[in-house]
């Protein structure tokens, strides 16, 4: 990696600067939503449905209202008076805030109790009596499409079935032709299970409506405060909530991972309660509510087919997918992409032909289709292509590394136009894989594996060479509810040369206060320590679409550097005025302008900043600040190669991840320490769904895995010590060549682990195992193949 251009004092890009946000966190002085306590604040708790599909015959709140301290019980009928009982989803579907007729999934909000303290509110919830009439439940998305399936969305007058959308990409005819002409075709069904981000902080808010000023302030766990403000204004405009009177404050966030993008009913009910009662109302969900009612991720039923020549050259890819969206399409995707960016499924390979289709389906499950630390369905796409690639390698009896190296898009072919329409900005896939193989000692491991097999021991080596697509996105294609997916920075330089930079994104642990400061430091030479970064308050920060899908660095980060460059342009004019020379005679080095040829004649950015307020040229506006709204010309395409080494217990089927090597390429790096931290965390969230996490439902729509007893987050014991390394292939179109890295590891890790487990059993003909790879699944494979102890 190239050396930093700035000194450790300035701490621009490439320095592993210690995080500026940490001093408050390590002292327990972070400020999370549940830490906020306002005078007269009331507490809200929610009554939820035990049924997955049921008619609400009656709601009797009389007993609850008799409890001292219970002030109100809000139902769908209450909200219907204000026409607030339904709200739009990000995908322009509709979602109940509180039901007036029927519930559509287990744990759906049915009523809300407002009380003077959270203990009393909980007592109130227990005292609300709801009479349900259970209705037929549809859990299986395949059955949901059957002609005789009950139509779930009875609220939609003209809805005759449970299909939400059909989406497709690529040339079907050309792909079918390529398949017909190929030597080898492999097919594999795979299910990418429904999972939950389970950030350690759950969701919640404090809604504070001031009757006098008519101002609504909402402190909430949101990754996209500005978009939320606009949504609130659109949803509640008719009851007098006007956008200039709405202030969304996203304080410290205890992890987001995509789960804090949607607007959940709880937020809206709390706002309604505060407006009606005129007091602050706090709602914080508990863990079971969080797992059972908040947006899920994945739930893709995939059928994949890959065609190739005898020599292993991949020729075509064909994918058909059924997507279970729950009772409403509340996916957090860009509006024009109902299946997100699933069309990245051609992965890292020079495939000439591909065709992919996805059908979205309604079922009696919670809505969602959010990312789980990934960019819009990229994880599903990567698991699909990386798994089927190994199936092909097995079919051809080729080493999976060799097959990948043979089919990678050649480095010289970038920018690469993919068969499904994307223009990959840059990449060097062979370099990343070779580096990973070198670090892990690939040849030696294959030798060890052979020896162990001879001794009857089972170990596997699994590769995943993924390509991501992040940084949404160019306004011509990307919007959410019509809001274009640019992002922003507003930069002010104070007279003493210190800076304040505000952004439209919102960190949930990514370290923006540090990395954004380093970007400004890199561009202006102002020490990062002296750059104050602010996000998350819609009254002060410039409008932006928020932080998810690894978009902060590609969009807001870019805006930061462009704003700084605007400042530098003005600074140049001021420097010329101070040095009494022409601006064209000045040259920039980090921190100062000097006259070409006479470096002694120079002005530092601090001197220039002071002059901007005390001695600026006549005819020029005073001050030194700039705003940038960055509309990326393309997305960025981070990539990497991961290798997992696993050992399998032949008695129990337990899988132990012995080693995990991750070589990532996210372009130019702002803070190597933080990038490694992001990758470590992503790897753990890749291991989790590969081995442990799943939310499933029984035939009656009962959730299983609805608490941390059965929704299994890995601990430090199940997690290996990660081995990370980098290659650097800058993005040609990004202002400082960065690509975004927060999610690469979550996306790339699962197939590496799945491929390793299958590899351990490949010699007896095992070709596939579904995630999460539980001990019993492995044990059954051992048993079927006579390997069980």
């Amino acid at each position: 990696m190239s050396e930093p251009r700035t000194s450790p004092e300035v701490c621009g890009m490439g320095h592993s600067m210690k995080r500026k946000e940490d001093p408050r966190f390590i002292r327990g002085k972070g400020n999370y939503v549940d830490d906020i306590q306002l005078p007269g604040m009331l507490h809200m708790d929610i009554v939820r449905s035990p049924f997955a599909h049921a008619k609400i015959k009656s709601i009797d709140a009389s007993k609850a209202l008799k409890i001292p301290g219970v002030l109100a019980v809000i139902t769908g009928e209450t909200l219907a008076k204000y026409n607030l009982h339904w709200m739009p989803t990000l995908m322009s579907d509709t979602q109940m805030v509180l039901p007036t007729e029927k519930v559509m999934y287990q744990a759906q909000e049915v009523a809300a109790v407002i009380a003077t303290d959270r203990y009393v509110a909980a007592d109130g919830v227990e005292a609300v009596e709801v009479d349900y009439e259970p209705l037929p439940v549809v859990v299986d998305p395949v059955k949901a499409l059957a002609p005789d399936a009950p139509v779930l969305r009875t609220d939609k007058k003209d809805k005759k079935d449970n299909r939400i959308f059909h989406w497709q990409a690529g040339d079907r005819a050309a792909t079918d032709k390529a398949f017909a002409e190929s030597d080898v075709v492999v097919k594999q069904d795979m299910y990418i299970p429904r999972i939950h981000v389970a950030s350690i902080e759950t969701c919640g808010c404090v809604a504070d409506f001031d009757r006098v000023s008519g101002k609504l302030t909402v402190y909430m766990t949101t990754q996209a405060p500005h978009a939320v403000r606009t949504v609130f204004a659109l949803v509640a405009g008719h009851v007098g909530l006007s956008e200039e009177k709405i202030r969304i404050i996203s304080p410290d966030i205890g992890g987001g991972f995509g789960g804090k993008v949607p607007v959940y009913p709880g937020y809206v009910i709390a706002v309604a309660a505060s407006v009606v009662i005129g007091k602050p109302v706090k709602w914080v969900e508990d863990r079971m509510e969080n797992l059972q009612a908040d947006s899920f991720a994945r739930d893709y039923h995939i059928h994949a087919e890959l065609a190739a020549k005898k020599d292993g050259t991949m020729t075509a890819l064909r994918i058909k997918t059924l997507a279970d969206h729950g009772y409403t399409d509340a996916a957090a995707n860009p509006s024009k992409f109902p299946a997100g960016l699933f069309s990245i499924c051609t992965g890292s390979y020079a495939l000439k032909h591909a065709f992919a289709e996805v059908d979205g389906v309604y079922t009696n499950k919670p809505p969602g289709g959010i990312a789980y630390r990934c960019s819009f369905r990229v994880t599903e796409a990567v698991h699909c292509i990386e798994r089927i690639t190994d199936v092909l390698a097995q079919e051809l009896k080729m080493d999976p590394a060799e097959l990948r190296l043979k089919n990678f898009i050649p480095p010289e072919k970038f920018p690469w136009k993919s068969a499904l329409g994307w223009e990959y900005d840059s990449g060097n896939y062979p370099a990343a894989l070779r580096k990973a193989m070198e670090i892990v000692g690939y040849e030696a491991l294959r030798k060890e594996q052979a020896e162990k097999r001879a001794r009857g021991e089972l170990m596997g080596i699994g590769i995943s060479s993924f390509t991501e697509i992040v940084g949404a996105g160019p306004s011509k294609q990307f919007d959410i509810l019509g809001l274009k997916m640019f992002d922003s920075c507003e930069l002010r330089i104070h007279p003493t040369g210190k800076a304040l930079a505000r952004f439209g994104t919102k960190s949930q642990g990514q370290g923006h206060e540090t990395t954004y400061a380093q970007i400004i430091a890199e561009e202006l030479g102002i020490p990062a320590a002296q750059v104050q970064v602010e996000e998350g308050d819609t009254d002060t920060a410039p409008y932006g679409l928020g932080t998810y899908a690894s978009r902060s660095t590609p969009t807001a980060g870019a805006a930061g550097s462009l704003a700084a460059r605007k400042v530098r342009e003005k600074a140049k004019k001021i420097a010329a005025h101070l040095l009494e020379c022409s601006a064209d005679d000045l040259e920039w080095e980090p921190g100062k302008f000097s006259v070409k040829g006479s470096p002694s004649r120079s002005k530092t950015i601090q001197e220039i900043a002071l002059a901007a307020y005390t001695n600026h040229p006549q005819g020029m506006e005073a001050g030194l600040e700039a705003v940038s709204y960055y509309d990326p010309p393309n997305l960025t395409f981070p990539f990497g190669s991961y290798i997992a080494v696993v050992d399998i217990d032949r008695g129990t089927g337990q899988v132990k991840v012995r080693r995990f090597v991750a070589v990532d390429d996210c372009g130019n790096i702002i803070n190597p320490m933080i990038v490694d931290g992001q990758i470590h965390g992503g790897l753990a969230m890749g291991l989790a769904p590969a081995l442990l996490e799943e939310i499933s439902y029984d035939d009656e729509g009962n959730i299983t895995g609805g608490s941390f007893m059965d929704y299994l987050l890995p601990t430090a014991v199940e997690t290996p010590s990660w081995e990370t390394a980098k290659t650097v292939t800058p993005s040609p179109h990004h202002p400082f060549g960065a690509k975004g890295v927060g999610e690469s590891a979550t996306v790339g890790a699962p197939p590496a682990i799945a491929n390793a487990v299958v590899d351990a059993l490949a010699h007896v003909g095992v070709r596939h195992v579904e995630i999460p790879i539980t001990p019993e699944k492995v044990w059954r494979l051992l048993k079927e193949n006579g390997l069980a102890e």
Partner: protein
Amino acid sequence: MIPSAFDYHAPASIPEAIALLSRFGESAKVISGGQSLLPLLKLRLGTAEHLVDIGRIAGLEYVREEGGSLRIGGRTRESVLERSEIVQTRFPILLDTARVIADPLVRNRATVGGNLAHGDPANDHPATMLALRATVVAQGPNGERTIPIDRFFTGLFATALAADEILTEIRIPVPPNRSGGAYMKLERKVGDYATAAAAAQVTLDGAGNFSQVGLALTNAGPVPTRASAAEDVLRGKRADEANIAEAARRAAKAASPTADRRGSVEYKREMARVLAVRALKKAVERAGGR
């Protein structure tokens, strides 16, 4: 998650505690470490009008050898058991067990007595105590009585303790020379209940045969029970692979696990067998056998 309201009592002595339990009867519940009870109350699955906290009663936390048996105070925390020198040096099976109960933080509150008195077949100590042929000491209005562990577990979450009795001590006979024990647990992750687990305590004679055998399984049925059939197979026999394998088969055959997210009945029964083999082998090894 917030529990329903209840009254809390912190008696300073056992008689005081028993008096409270007698007074409140069924509406009272003893709280020891509370690591099973409090989550229940918070989920509002459980209710108790009165909690009688035995945590304030002095002298209920100890691990000592006395009169040929290891005596564990009813309110001894798992972490204390884990760090006890006698346990570390002479009762490896108890160390194995304490180390896999819940997680280290829970073990700083959870108690050995609570783990038994809860009567949960998924808890880890019942199998261990069965293998060790422990005796439970209970105190009630009519004074003290001892209950052999084989008669302690009477049903799913039910024990021989009366509503007004308190588990005050667990007594474990000190094993003779050439004894060894082990507890082997399969869990999905740290903190989980056992998918299956096996506790084995053996004593070998001069000829390397089993002279005493204790074997029991965790979460293998509604009530913690010893694998008697398996014990019978081994008693007096050579401590070899074949005998151990046969015993494990019998233990698994006798198990009646139920299917859940941890696994199917078939898988759990098979894991009972695998873990029984491993626990027995380890126990033999620790007993100085091959």
